[in-house]
Structure formats: C-alpha cells, structure tokens
C-alpha cells in the first residue's frame, strides 16, 4: 500500500519547535537505556538484516558487481549460521542501485521476491531539470524498479518554499506509479532540525512511503538525533492521518551496535510496527558484514575473520 498523501498543510509543521540540545540528549541516552543480550541480540540483528536496503551506488558499478550484491541479498547470512539459530528464508529488505543497474538486479534476484530500489532524480544532488528527473523515475520504473529513492531540492527547504517542495514531490510521486517512493531529505544539507522536521512533513504530505535521511554523500549522514526528529514527525503524521509512513536512515550505520541503536529508536519512539521492512529500512553496505560477524560469534563463540564470510 502506498501513502496517498494529503494536501499541503503548512499549519501542521510551521509552528514546530525543536530544542537541539534536548534532542541530542535524548539521542545520546536512547541506546544506553536498552540492552539486548544473547538470543535477543541475535534476533534483533537478524531483524536489522531483514530491513537492510543492501546498496551499491558507485561510479564503477557493473552488472556483475550488482549480481554479486544480489546474491548476498538473497543469502545475507551464511546458511550454517542461520541454521544454527533456526531462522529460515532471511533476505535483506531490498537492493538499492542506480537506474541503469535495475535490470541486472532484477535478473539476478529472479523470483526471490526481494524488491529492487533505484535512486533517481539526479541522485545525489538532485539539481537536474525537473522533467529530466521525472523521466529518470519513469525509466527506472520501466526497468522494473519496485521502489524509487528520490532526492529533494534542498534549496526549497533552505528557502522555506514549501509549495515548490510539495509540488515537486507530488510530481515525483505520480511518476513513480505503483512503485513505492522514498524521499531522501539530505539532512546533512538542511542543517537545522526544524528544517528536517518541516521537510519530513512536506514529504509525507506529498505521499512519500518512507522518508530517508541521506544520500550517503553528504558531509553528515544519518545520525540518531536527526532520526529522532524524523521519527517524531512520522508519529505526528500518523496521529493526524492514520497513515503509517516508513523511515530509512542511510549512510552512517556501520556496526551491529548501530543497527541495535536505530532499532531501539524505532521501538521506543514509534513502536513494534516500525521494526518491519515495510516501515523501516536501513541504507547500508558495510553494516551487513559486521552483523554477520556478530551472528557468527553468537553461534560459534568465536569472532570470524572477514575472509571466512561471503562478501557482498
């Protein structure tokens, strides 16, 4: 199901007040307030795997490289480890690639049911003419993309031009058709947490299915503080509309500990529903390796060398 969106409702966010030090305090103590051990830790780490958008967004991507990524998405954790913990059918949430890599990814994923997400709209800067950006979305959808990760025009936020931002996102939503849309806010460029909150609201009103922190290319990518602010806007949007919008932190989650921290954030601020891949994705590439090492340790009691685990 996709988010139908609403009319632009600036009154839902224009008076928003965010105290940055207080957000930082909450973000700093959140991971310390919850602790996961043993089976619970393993389960939460495997859940994180379920939510990963396994990503490659590099200039040197090739169809074979993408195929290898897809193989990892289908079998993210070594089968003997999964067997040891009694978990079957585990895949990542999606793979995430450039538009020209959608077709190779679809081929590689076959009937696995793993969605292919494509970045579009002049990723990462988004400063191409709008018609080209929309055309890029249509191309990716045409190639078979199930999800589109669009980038917003940061200038609209910095200039508080909510109408322009809303109209742009609406057009993108329409271009996505039945594909689900993730709106990348590039929070590292928006700087202030009020900007992040306002942009989140506009994106959800325009019909984003997930709001996403970063392209991975900004100076600062996903942080717990920014994520906390975005989650609270999701909560408020849900309270007003009944629509559950998803969240995707990207760039900055590298360790198993990060995976736990972000899941604790989702659980504490939004609840259980936001711990499933339809409402929570993690944009990451190296994270999976660290999780697999932790699972290996959970099963064997020893830390594995990286060469013993299959690369992405």
């Amino acid at each position, binding site marked *: 199901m996709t988010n139908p969106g609403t009319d632009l409702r600036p009154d839902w966010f224009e008076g928003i007040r965010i*105290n940055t030090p*207080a957000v930082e305090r909450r973000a700093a103590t959140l991971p310390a*307030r919850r*602790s996961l051990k043993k*089976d619970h830790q393993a389960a939460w780490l*495997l859940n994180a795997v379920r939510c990963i958008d396994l990503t490659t967004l590099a200039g040197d991507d090739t169809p074979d490289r993408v195929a290898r990524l897809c193989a990892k998405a289908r079998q993210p954790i070594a089968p003997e480890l999964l067997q040891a*913990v009694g978990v*079957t059918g585990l895949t990542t949430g999606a793979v995430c690639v450039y538009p020209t890599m959608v077709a190779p990814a679809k081929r590689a994923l076959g009937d696995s049911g793993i969605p292919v997400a494509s970045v579009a709209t002049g990723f990462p800067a988004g400063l191409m003419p709008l018609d080209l950006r929309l055309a890029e979305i249509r191309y990716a959808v045409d190639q078979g993309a199930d999800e589109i990760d669009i980038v917003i025009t940061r200038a609209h936020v910095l200039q508080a031009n909510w109408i322009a931002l809303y109209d742009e996102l609406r057009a993108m939503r329409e271009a996505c058709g039945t594909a689900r849309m993730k709106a990348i806010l590039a929070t590292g460029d928006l700087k*202030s947490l009020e900007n992040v909150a306002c942009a989140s609201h506009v994106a959800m009103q325009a019909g984003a299915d997930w709001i996403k922190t970063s392209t991975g290319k900004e100076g600062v990518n996903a942080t717990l503080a920014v994520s906390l602010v975005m989650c*609270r806007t999701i909560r408020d949007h849900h309270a007003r509309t009944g629509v559950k919008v998803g969240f995707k932190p990207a760039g900055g989650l590298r360790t198993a500990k990060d995976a736990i921290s972000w899941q604790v954030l989702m659980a504490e601020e939004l609840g259980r529903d936001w711990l499933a891949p339809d409402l929570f994705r993690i944009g990451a590439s190296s994270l999976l390796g660290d999780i697999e090492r932790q699972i290996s340790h959970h099963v064997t009691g020893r830390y594995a060398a990286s060469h013993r685990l299959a690369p992405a």
Partner: protein
Amino acid sequence: MSRVSEIMETMEYGPSVEDSSAVRDWLAAQGRFGHFIDGAFTDVGATFETRDPSTGDVLARVSQGSEADVAAAVAAARAAQPGWAALSGTERARYLYALARHVQKRERFLSVLETLDNGKPIREARDIDVPLVARHFYHHAGWAELRDSQFPGHAPLGVCGQIIPWNFPLLMLAWKIAPALAAGNTVVLKPAEYTPLTALAFAEICQEIGLPAGVVNIVTGDGVTGAALVASEVDKIAFTGSTEVGRGIALALAGTGRRLTLELGGKSPFVVMEDADLDAAVEGVVDSIWFNQGEVCCAGSRILVAEAVAPRFEALLRARMARLRVGAPLDKSTDLGAIVDPVQKDRILSICQAAVEAGAELVGGQPQDGCFIAPGYLRNIAPANPGMVEEIFGPIATLSTFRTADEAIELANATRYGLAGSVWSESATVATDLAARIKAGVIWINGANMFDAAASFGGMRDSGYSREGGHSGMRDYLAGPKVAPMTTPASPAPKAAPPAIDRTAKLYIGGAQKRPDGGAMYAVPGGLAPQGSRKDIRNAVEAAAKAGKWAAMGGHARAQVLYFIAENLAARRDEFAARTSPAEVGAALARAFHYAAWADKFDGRTVQAKPGHLVTVIPEPHGIIGITCPESQPLAGFLSLVLPAIAMGNAVVAIPSPGDPLPVMDLCQVFDTSDLPGGVVNVVTGAAAELSPHLAGHEEVSAVWHAGAAEELAAIDRAASHTLTPVWPVPARDWTGPRAQGETFLHHATRQKTIWLPYGALPAGSGGQAY
C-alpha cells in the same frame, strides 16, 4: 519455531542483567560490617540488616552506631584534623585525585553495589551517579590545590558531621566529603540506614589510597545515630534529607553557633510554555520525576503547562509513560527500579490515595508486587490537594495548567519549598524571565536534573540553605578570616544635650514615622524611645515585603541612593558625631561609599559545568533580612549591617541598639531625604531579646543577622529553625574599624541561584560547535 525466530516476531528486549557476582562475593566475604573509624573497621557491634529492595533479600548486616561510636569517630576526626589541615593544598589534592581515580577504577563494582542496596536502575547508577562521584572528587582536588589562593585568609572549620540520604547514597557522600576534605576539614559521615553499603565500600577505597587515618570516618546507623552526631562536638553539620529532620537539626543546634548546611525536600515546578519543544519537555519529565523512581529532592514534580498546549503535551506524556519499563534494577533495560523500602512505598501510595480522595485523578502510578510502583501523574488537581502540597518522593507528578506567564510564576512559587525549577520555552526572553522569577536555588532551562561539581546546588524556604558544589560550596566548608573582638571598650556615647524643642522618637516603618502599637516608651540616652512589640515587627515586615521594587531597580540605581545617603549624612556630620563619635560617623560614611561601590559589582560567576551549557551562579538578595544590631556603636553598627543588606537589594527590618537607639531614629530622616524608597529599611526599637525571636520566626523574613547580645542567639535560632531561616551570628567587632565591612557581609546578604541553559543551534556534525 526457534527461539530466535520467535523473538524476531515479538521483538521484545528480553533480560539483560548486569553481573553482580563480584559484589555478592564481596558482601559474602564481609558479611557483617563495623564502622570505619580512625582508618580501620571497628569490631561489629549491634547490627541491623540492609536489604535489596527489589527482592527483599538481606545483603549484609551493618553496625548500629551508638553514642560511643560517634564519640570515637569524632575524636578520631578531631585528632586527625590538624595534620590534615597542615598538608599543603597540593598534598590534599593528591589524595582527592586518588579517590577520584579509584572510584573510576571501581566504577562497575560501585554501580552494582549501589543498585543492589538502593534499587535504582543500573543504567542510572552506572551512567549518572558514579561518574558524578568521580567528577566531584576531581573537581575538589582542584579546589584543594587552589584553596589558599582563591580563599585567602580562610581556614577549615574543623570536624564536620555529615548525614546523607538514601536516594543517591554514594553521590551524596561525594558531595559532602569532597569539599570538606578539600577545605582541610575532617569528617564523620553517617550514611542512611537503608543504604550504607557504598559508603563502606568507599571506606575501603580510603584505606586503599592511604588516606591518613581519621580524615574520613563512617558510622552507620539510623536516626538515633544521626542525632548523636548532631549532638556531638563537631564544628559543622551538613545534612541532606527530609525537611522535618532538617528542622529538628536546626533546633538542636540552636545557640551553638555551629555551621549548618541543609539540603531538604522540594516540590519543584516544571513549567511548560506554549512555545516549548513539547517532546523535549516530555523527556524532561522522564528525567525529572521518573528518574531514580522519583526519589529525587529536586525533581520537577509539579508540571505546569500552558493551556494552549496542554492537550497535546498530555497526549505525548501518556505515550511516553507507556514505554517506560519498571523492573529489576540490575536489568540494563530498566527505566524505573525498586522503591528503596516498603515503608517508602506505603508512604507514596498513601499520599496518592489522599490526593485521589481529595478529587485528583491518578493516571498510572499503580502499585506492583514487591517494592515497585508504576510511573504516573495526578491530573485535575487543586492547589491545596495533598498530592500538590506534599513531597511524594515517588514516580508520581502532578499536572495542572496555567494561562499566562504571570500565572505560571504564581503557581510555580505557591509552595513552601524552593529547591529547583524547570522551565521549557524556545524564547530566550521568556525562559530567562521565568528563571529569574521562580523562587528556587537551581533553575534548568530546557532541561532537568542536571548536576555538576562546579555548579552550586541548594535551596531556599523549606528546602534549606547553604550550597554544595563549586565556589559557594567550598565557602560553606571554610571559616572567613578571624575578626578580633573589640579590645578597648567603645568610647561611651556622649550624653546628648537636651533638644531645644522636645522631640518624639517613633518607629520607622514603610518610610514613615509610626507610633508603637503598644504606645509605650522607655528611657534611653537623649530621651525616650518607642517600645516596639510583636505587632510592630509584623507591620515592619509587611512594609518590607512591599519594597520589592528595590531589588528590581538594579545595582546602579541602588548605588545612587547609597551615595545620596552619604551626602546627606555628611551634611549633618557634626550633629551625629556629637550624638555618637566622629569615628562612628566616619565609619558610617565609609560604609555608604563601600557598599555603593559594591552595589553593581558583586557579580555571580559563569561556571564550566559542561560544554554546551551556559551555567551561571547568580547572587540574589534573600528578600527581607531581619537584623539585630550591636549594643555598642549604635550608628556604625547599624549601618555596617544595614547597608550591605540593602546594597544587594534586600529590604531590612532592624532592631537597633536597645540601649542607645536614638541616633538611628535620627538617621531615618536622612533616609527620607535620600530617595530611599519606603519599606526598604524599617526600624523597630525596644527590648531586642523580646523582639528578635518574633522577627526571626516571621515566615516572610528570609535571613537573620544577629549582632546583638550573644545570649539572645539561642532563642533566635530556635525561632528560625521553625521557618528554616538561615541565621548569621555576626561576630562582635569594632564597628568603626576596617573589618566591619567587606565581601563577607555581601555573601551573607545574598544566596546563590544556579541557572542552567543548554545551547546549540545545530546538531552534532552539522556545524554546531557546542557538542
């Protein structure tokens, strides 16, 4: 389905219990504890049990301190004190540094032990209590090093008796011991009956670092042991605990002249303005009343929220409350642990029940098996409801609304306490205004329960007096330069020549001459003086209470009035010299210039508590100071006391020299011609011994200075103990001399308010420099 698969469905946290085996081994090895006196543990005497409140299991048996134990500890401290004080600052600093390091090295052990004995969540013991303990010893290692340069002429008090509560056992120990030792005192500390174990572990650390024997002594026991310590020959008592017990200690010390620091109860306001970040404010509630099971004296327990945002705030509050986890204290995912003892649990529940019976609605707050209570709050609660008035000391807040900032202040200050306050507004203008107007010793703007060794902590009203932490906290463990008592008798007051036309002296109240209520006069040099009564004291205090604008005028404007007083007094110099002495008039003029100079310069300090936090410690006037003046040197004595008080913005009710009050009555004419607003200075003549307890016991009087007859002190102290008013027994001196003025008077004329303001426009990494 495998276990892991099942958890992947429920996504529950599961148990994550901190390992307590090392602590349990230690407890098993000790079994029964003696006291720590003169560097060694005593033989175990009569003992009592200390329990883990979360299970009711006995953790250990500790000794019940007797009078003899206390006496032995005080004797050890007394014997050790000269040697400890004789060490250089650097040498004392090395010991304090070692204490800090060893607390850090045993961080895990101490956290677990604290959690076992108190029931607080391990996260709080580990992330808040113990790091602050180490911070306190580090900070005060610095004060030991700097004492001589920063407090010239000051000396340690001697032996300090310290009685601490059960809510932050080790942290309160650190707050007490670190400054005392840094200043050169030795201590006898009595931990709370419920939670003696970390203090005993600390005693081992003292042995471990080779702290000289007798510098720190720890006597365990109940209130009887505490009373024995209060009654013993110590030079200071520092007490943190209930208002009721604090009042009893003040009464017990009446007339002894011993120093007293009281850090008592609170019912602190938590004000949420309509422009606040409501999510931040809700998190502030979690950090206030749902921190440490609400067993926090400074907890923001009275939530006051602007009507405009009240529905949304409450909805957010309920949602947040629902996610708090109540459970095993050693579980690392626990938010609220066990209440310290079944007695306390019953007390909390009985106040909640009384509140509900009086018409309030309790949301959450349900008792659970064992010593646990779910977080909750009382809504629809009237100002006089017991739940609104009593300190619940459990995880139950009150929630009420206000319409405007003024109403918020009125409600915030409608309490007998004055410990702390929390203010939530994104407007710097509004937030700082509220911070200035809330009557409390500590204000957190957009924050709650922030503590640091550099930031003074302490209250006013029924929350006690004196400060702990930072510069002011050090001063409270030091004695100022000794003042020589007057060696040569003051030159006798010259007999005033009879006036050409008969004059009638009256009381000076509210800027006007008033006949005494009883209509009686008594003979004094120069004529008859009015015989004031308790009703005149009442009228004078009422007049003083209306002089609030004096403080708001600011130091510069007050200085102008003081200079003007000097100017007009100088014009009548010969007349006053004839009534008193040239030296007295000279001193009077010197005082006016001295305190006019200070009026706009006695500043607070901005302290380095934490990066990204603007923390300011501001000297505030007490409000109304009641002053009894020395018998001799009626003019110089009066002005040496009244001028520093009013220079800082206080109003004064003074009882002048009972034997020779008329020079002061003439001086009131000088006040009238010097633009001193009516009510700032009020003078009631008469029998000081009879009047002063009425003055000290008046609830509107916030501080008392007694420079009158020494034998009157006890009655004044007793009266002031009921209202918990600090009394300064001002040592006698030559009131015309240079030692009759200076900063000591200004310190006593003010109390510290610490205001915390976290700042930062942008989050970490986005250009924000604050973090």
